[in-house]
Structure formats: C-alpha cells, structure tokens
C-alpha cells in the first residue's frame, strides 16, 4: 500500500451553487422573483413581511418559511391569505441553522409558483450560516435591529456583505436606547461600502414605504428583464 497525492482544487460549496442555479432557472421560468431574507433571531423579519406582503399592488407575494422547528411564523402569515410554505430544517439530529439550495429545492413542488410573482424566503434566524449558502435567489436582504448593537457588522462581516439591502429595524426604540446610529451606519459602510440601506420601524410603519417600493422595483424590474 502506498499513498498518492491527488490535486483537487475545487470549491467545496460548488455542489450547493449548482443546485442554487437550478433553483434559479426554475424560478425564472415561472416568472418568480426570489428574495433571501436573513437576520439574527428576533430582528423582525416576520413582522417586516407582514407589513408588506399583502400591500404590493400588482405583485402576488408568496413566502417560504425556514425554521428549525414548528410553524409559528407560517401561522402568523397565514392570516394574510397568501401562499405560505413551511420548511423545517430539523432532519433528525438537530436542526440545520440555515437554508441551503437543496432544502429550498425540496420545497419547490409544494410552492404554487404560478400564483406567485415575488417569493420571499425567510431564512433561519442566524447571522453566520445563511450567509454561506446561495439558494437561487435574485437578491439578498438582511435585517439588523438597533437593539442588537452597533458593532454587529464588524462581528458578522460575511452576513453584512452577503446582501444587496440592509434594513435597520426598530428605529422607534432609538430614544430609549444608548445606541449610536451613526456608528452602526459607519460600520456597515466599512464592511460593505455603498450597500443600500433603509431605516425602518415595523412597529410604527416608518420607512416601510421605501421597503415596499424597493420590493416593487425588484419584482417589476425582474419581469421587464424577463
């Protein structure tokens, strides 16, 4: 027996990216724009979805809910009368902390794509892992809440870089917090220069119009391009 070195030089996540491309083709063929919606747990993803999901004129929204367990978020969204599909990542020995392309692929048959123009995939709440896995999305949006601290971009740079839009949520709480908004915005700019960002409050509705318009632009622009 002897040992031989074999040169490989292959990105280990190529397999995920291949499946992500297949998802993207399926979504494009069905005319569906897809957003990968990410944040830490409790930053307000579901509430921000509730704010816009049924108020985008001419755009039919569907939601794919990723959670380790349960269907609490899906149940909340069910009241909006839009298609919501729950995807649990608990596969036996502890749930995965993120969605990957294959998990999203497994959910495609359950999604009524012909009834959806804009599919928002609410990822598992986590600032680390979802940033590593493309799922076949057109755009990635992340939410950071002002209750999380100004230094988060510096601690989780991959997530703050792996997005095309940053929503800074819960700004209604600013008067009650020792939070330096300028410092957060500076840190975001250090990590992801010139990334688009919006200050919003899912509670008061401040900034929600801009978030809605961003989604509309993306969904309609995608249709025009297709």
């Amino acid at each position, binding site marked *: 027996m002897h040992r031989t070195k*074999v040169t490989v030089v292959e990105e280990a996540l190529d397999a995920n990216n291949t499946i992500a491309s297949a998802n993207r083709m399926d979504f494009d063929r069905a005319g569906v724009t897809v957003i990968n919606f990410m944040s830490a747990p409790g930053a307000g993803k579901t509430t921000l979805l509730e704010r816009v999901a049924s108020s985008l004129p001419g755009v039919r929204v569907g939601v794919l809910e990723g959670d380790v367990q349960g269907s609490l978020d899906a149940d909340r969204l069910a009241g909006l009368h839009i298609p919501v599909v729950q995807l649990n990542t608990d596969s036996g020995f502890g749930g995965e902390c993120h969605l990957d392309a294959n998990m999203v692929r497994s959910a495609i048959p359950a999604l009524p794509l012909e009834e959806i123009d804009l599919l928002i995939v609410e990822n598992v709440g986590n600032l680390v892992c979802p940033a590593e896995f493309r799922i076949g999305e057109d755009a990635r949006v992340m939410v950071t809440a002002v209750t999380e601290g100004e230094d988060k971009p510096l601690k989780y740079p991959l997530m703050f870089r792996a997005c095309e839009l940053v929503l800074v949520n819960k700004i209604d709480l600013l008067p009650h917090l020792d939070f330096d908004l300028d410092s957060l915005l500076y840190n975001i700019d250090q990590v992801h220069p010139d990334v688009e960002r919006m200050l919003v409050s899912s509670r008061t509705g401040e900034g929600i119009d801009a978030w809605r318009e961003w989604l509309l632009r993306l969904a309609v622009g995608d249709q025009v391009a297709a």
Partner: protein
Amino acid sequence: MHELALSSAIVATVEKHAAGRRVSLVTLRVGRLRQVVPETLEFYFEFVARGSVCEGARLEHELVEARLQCNLCATEWSIDVPAFRCPSCGDGGVSVIGGNEFQVESIEVEEAECIAPR
C-alpha cells in the same frame, strides 16, 4: 454550527475525486473572509466521514489571507479587520481577489501496490 454542513460538502467533494480509494489526508484552503472555525470543522468532519472513503482521514487547512483590489485606482492590499474601503482613494468599489476560498486543495489516497511479476 454550519461547520456540519460544510463538512458534508467536503466529504462529497472528496468522494468525487477519490474514486473509491481510501483517503488518509484532506487539505483545505480556507479564506480568512469565511466564517469557518477549523477546530469545529475537524470535529464534524470526523463524524460525517464515518462510513465514507474519508473515514479516519486527517483534515488539514491552510489559511488564505483576505486580499482586495480597488476597482477605481487598482490599489491592492490585505486586511485582517473588516475594512473594505480603498485605503488610497476611499472608493467603495472593491473586488475580493483572495480570502473567499473554501476549497479542497488536495487529497492523499491509499493505492494498492502494483504486484508486477519480476
């Protein structure tokens, strides 16, 4: 935590190249911009590798520095803190030319000796 999924991705990549041969060493190139904890990766790799050609294989890694290039003035520099604006001209349009790697660089496989008649 995603080191579990990354370990599975490593094993799947190695299996493609091992062609059924037993693997004794896997060498990775891990960019500094990836949020990968090598010790955690080794822990999960040992677990995920069981029952595959990678069972019992060692996992080694080489860290790749984060290297950036300004799209405007072409300055190249390395970072060890997340500061992505160009230090020369201040522009934000920057390309990552190193540091995003999560590659299987090479593997070491065990070959049966060729028993040639003398």
